[in-house]
Structures are given as structure tokens and as C-alpha cells.
């Protein structure tokens, strides 16, 4: 499957604040999925989570993830990315979650009590459905 850069139709889909689901792996190998915000910078995907989230422990143990992004206008159109969490960064000033929150809702993130962590995902392969 092709790597970076992603072709225009995939890049377009990822740049919008579309609904997405991220899959991680539990220690017993079973899949764990959850809906998520994401931000695509053209090369890597930013995910962000409360530091108490189970999936943070899962990706620390096994960095492999899969993310499916659904076109909000027609969810039958979707792109799935396969990759690895290349970097985990403490979001100390909540700058990353604010970027995500502004992207999705136009306002800074509301819950500012808990510590959060950013995960930067490097894409290794992808597929778009339906094919274009």
C-alpha cells in the first residue's frame, strides 16, 4: 500500500474534523476501540487523551494503532490508517487538546483539571473506501 504523502482525496478527508475511531491492543491481544478527535498535519496524526485512559497504557506497551476516519457528510466514505505511535508527549499546557477542541468545536478545551498526553501516529499504510 502507498505511503506518504497521502493523495489529495485522503488528505482532504483527514484535514476535516471528521468522526474517527482508534483501535489499540490490550495486553491480551484483544482489540480496544474508542471514538476520538484527531488532527492531521500532513505527515502525522495527533491524538490526545486524558492520562488515566486505558489506551494510553495500551500504546505504551504496544504502539500499533489503527484509526478509521468517517466522512461526516457521508459516513460510508472512510479512510483507515494503520501505523504506530511514534511519540508520546505530555500536553502540559493543554495546547494540543486546545488545537483539537478548536478544530472540532471552535472553542478551547473545557475540562482543564486533568493531565493529558498527546500521541503522534506515523502512518504506515492506509486504505480509502470506496476507492476513487
Amino acid at each position, binding site marked *: 500500500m502507498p505511503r506518504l*504523502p497521502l493523495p*489529495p482525496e485522503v488528505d482532504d478527508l483527514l484535514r476535516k474534523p471528521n468522526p474517527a475511531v482508534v483501535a489499540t491492543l490490550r495486553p491480551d491481544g484483544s482489540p480496544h476501540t474508542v471514538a476520538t478527535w484527531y488532527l492531521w*498535519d500532513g*505527515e*502525522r496524526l495527533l491524538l490526545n487523551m486524558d492520562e488515566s485512559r486505558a489506551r494510553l497504557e495500551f500504546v505504551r506497551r504496544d504502539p500499533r494503532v489503527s484509526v478509521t476516519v468517517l466522512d461526516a457528510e457521508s459516513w460510508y466514505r472512510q479512510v483507515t490508517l494503520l501505523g504506530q505511535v511514534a511519540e508520546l508527549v505530555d500536553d502540559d499546557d493543554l495546547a494540543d487538546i486546545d488545537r483539537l477542541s478548536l478544530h472540532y468545536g471552535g472553542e478551547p478545551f473545557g475540562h482543564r483539571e486533568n493531565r493529558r498526553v498527546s500521541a503522534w501516529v506515523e502512518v504506515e499504510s492506509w486504505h480509502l473506501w470506496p476507492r476513487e
Partner: protein
Amino acid sequence: MAPLAARVSLEAGLDLIRRGEYFAAHEVLEDVWRAAEPAERDFYQGLVHVAVAWYQAGRGNRVGAERQLEKAARRLGPYAPEHEGVDVASILEQLAAAQAIVELGSLELPPPP
């Protein structure tokens, strides 16, 4: 890839860059890069980065553009001033100019060589 085929693909890739067909240029140049001899690989990979930098900038992918410009300059540097008939020195100048534009916050890059 035979030398003549590589030559033809290089010309095609550069022509696609000049026409602003950056995604297609990257695909053509990537094929040349993958088939290239070790001593030539950085040259072709550098040209792939040039194509991708302008592609990313055109799509508003700021971080992607920044990273690609930097990688392009790093890979192509050792091939200056000229390699395989390509004016590498001129490309490096335009990469530097593009990096300065991106640093100032714009993604409106002038057309590459």
C-alpha cells in the same frame, strides 16, 4: 531501472514539478529513487522531497511542508552545484527561499525550478 529509463523518468518528474503536478511528480521520482544506485539515492530522494514539499504547501499542510523542505535541502546539498544535468544550486536557493516564506507563516511558495 535502466539508465535511459531513469533519465526519462527524471525528466518526466521534473517536468511534472514545473507544471505544478506535485503529487504525480512525487510518484514518478519515487520510482527512480527506489531503483537508484546507492550513491544516487539521496539525489533522487531529495527531488521527491521537493515535490512533496510543494504538494504539502499547496494543501495547507504547514508542518509537512516544513519537514519536506528541510529534508530536501539536506539530501540535495552534497550534489550541488550540478548533478545529472540538474541545477542543484538553484534548487537549494529556492528551497532556502521557500523555508523563509514558511517561517514567516505563509504557504504561498513561488513555483520550484
